[in-house]
């Protein structure tokens, strides 16, 4: 063998594109998609609002001013108007973003942890598959909002309990998606190859199967945040989430509906913001799904 094999065969491939990580690739894809970019900007604005709420508003969200109630948007000093107690709507919206995002993200994070554990176990260990999936089916059979109501009703209405309820709500769908992905990955030859070199179960599970399941997890995570924000608002609207006078978007809609005809902005503003925010997370999740689709990226 005169020349090495690499020279004979591989020269044209050797200088291929630099290794790109999953994250890099995803960011690149998302930036190329205009809708995804817009949704990302909306999400970032929301995060900005949540983090800097106390510094970007002029009024305390809880401060009442009974001499300036029901001000319309565009009023002097209150560009989104005031509510029935004269509280600044803009300030309440900004602080509400804190609650929504905090609940949405932490419920999703907890749901991802629980769903990952259950999904990995069900997908990898066939003996436990039946039991775990039947329990999840049972949870699926409940209407989601009813399940959340039930949990909050048992635990009592509060933000922490909302998070617990919503994370339990998120677990079944996350676990299912992960399980099906694990079932696919586990059948691939590189897993057999790992077994043949004597890799232990934990090693195969956490170093080979889980990393190959991250894409669907990220996608479902992004979507789940949107769902959780909506659910937080729903629970808030029903009076089972954050308790008044906390500036929670759903609770604001609920409080504002009494005055819907005199001061429609009290309902419209939080309503529209909830919609935009959920829409943004769903769009973003969709874009991520395209960007991270294993069929289009892994073996390319």
């Amino acid at each position, binding site marked *: 063998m005169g020349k090495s094999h690499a020279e004979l065969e591989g020269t044209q*491939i050797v200088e291929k594109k630099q290794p790109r990580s999953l994250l890099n690739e995803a960011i690149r894809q998302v930036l190329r998609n205009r809708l995804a970019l817009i949704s990302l900007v909306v999400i970032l604005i929301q995060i900005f609002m949540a983090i800097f709420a106390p510094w970007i508003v002029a009024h305390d969200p809880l401060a009442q001013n009974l001499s300036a109630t029901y001000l319309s948007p565009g009023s002097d000093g209150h560009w989104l108007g005031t509510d029935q107690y004269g509280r600044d709507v803009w300030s309440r919206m900004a602080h509400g973003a804190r609650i929504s995002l905090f609940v949405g993200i932490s419920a999703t994070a907890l749901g991802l942890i629980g769903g990952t554990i259950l999904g990995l176990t069900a997908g990898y260990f066939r003996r436990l598959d039946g039991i775990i999936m039947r329990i999840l089916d049972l949870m699926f059979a409940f209407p989601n909002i009813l399940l959340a109501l039930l949990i909050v009703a048992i635990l009592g209405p509060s933000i922490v309990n909302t998070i617990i309820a919503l994370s339990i709500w998120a677990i079944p769908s996350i676990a299912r998606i992960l399980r099906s992905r694990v079932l696919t990955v586990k059948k691939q030859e590189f897993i057999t*190859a790992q077994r043949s*070199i004597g890799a232990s179960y934990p090693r195969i599970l956490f170093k080979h199967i889980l990393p190959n399941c991250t894409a669907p997890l990220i996608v479902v995570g992004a979507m789940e945040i949107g769902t959780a924000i909506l659910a937080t608002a729903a629970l808030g609207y029903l009076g089972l989430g954050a308790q008044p006078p906390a500036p929670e978007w759903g609770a604001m809609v609920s409080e504002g509906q009494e005055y819907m005809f005199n001061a429609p902005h009290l309902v419209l503003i939080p309503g529209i913001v909830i919609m935009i925010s959920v829409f943004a997370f769903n769009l973003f999740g969709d874009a991520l799904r395209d960007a991270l689709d294993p069929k289009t990226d892994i073996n390319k």
Partner: protein
Amino acid sequence: MIANERPLLELEGVKKSYPIKRKSLTFKKDYIHAVNGITLDIMARETLGVVGESGCGKSTLGRTILQLETLNEGSVKFKSQDVSKVSKAKKMQLKRDMQMIFQDPYASLDPRQKVGRALEEPLLIHTKKTKSERQTKVNQLLKEVDLTEEHAERYPHQFSGGQRQRIGIARALALDPQFIVCDEAVSALDVSVQAQVIQLFQSLQENHDLTYLFISHDLSVIRYISDRILVMYLGNMAELAPANVLYNYPKHPYTKTLLSAIPSFTVNERKERLKLKDTDEKNGPVTGCPFEPRCPMAKDHCKTLIPEWREINPGHFVACHEV
């Protein structure tokens, strides 16, 4: 091959079957016998080729030897110890001694793992080498399969098929094994690349005293690389002979048909193509010769008697009544 040498690997009546469907009322399971009684010795440093049509159980045989599948009956002995009855520590040693190279180089490497990492992993699992020692070994492995150190930092999808298969080979070599199952190891590659990889297999065999079980459906590849060849039909052994004997003097009708199917490139040398009978009943009769339903030479007694595994010439075994 020295006659009184102990074989490296001894297979004794190895059977592996899978349940296919359960008849709901009777709870009786039907089985498909993927490997149906293989008895075989593999000597150190030889290459035993296994051929057969797809679904004949050749891959299952390889996987069963490596304990990736549990066997139902029979035994596999590596250096005289039964692989299914060893202690846990010994089992790990067996995993080091016996390795596998897979058919699809695209699927057999973790797409999320850099190549250097993939080669390091067997060392992490089995040895207590330090990081720099592992690094040295990885570089040495890459060199051995004609890749370079820079390749360690790349992901599998950045390589060509042939290169990827070399990475698979390097991974199998990482633990200095003695026995390697090559499961259709070159079938997914272009013909030009096939030749290089086969040469690599041969030079590695010389340098590392390797023993191969080389599984393929490609008759020319098998002929080129094997010392002895086993022909399998539906999980059964049909014929076993040294490579040149098998190609020049095939005895079993199935072997003859297989060989007649090799395309010939010279006009004058046109061979008569033997044909198999078509049948749906591929599972074969329970009582007789498994090949009987498709055999062009079948006689009545083939339906009722299972042919014996006979040595018709030294080293040439065949299972057929009509030979």
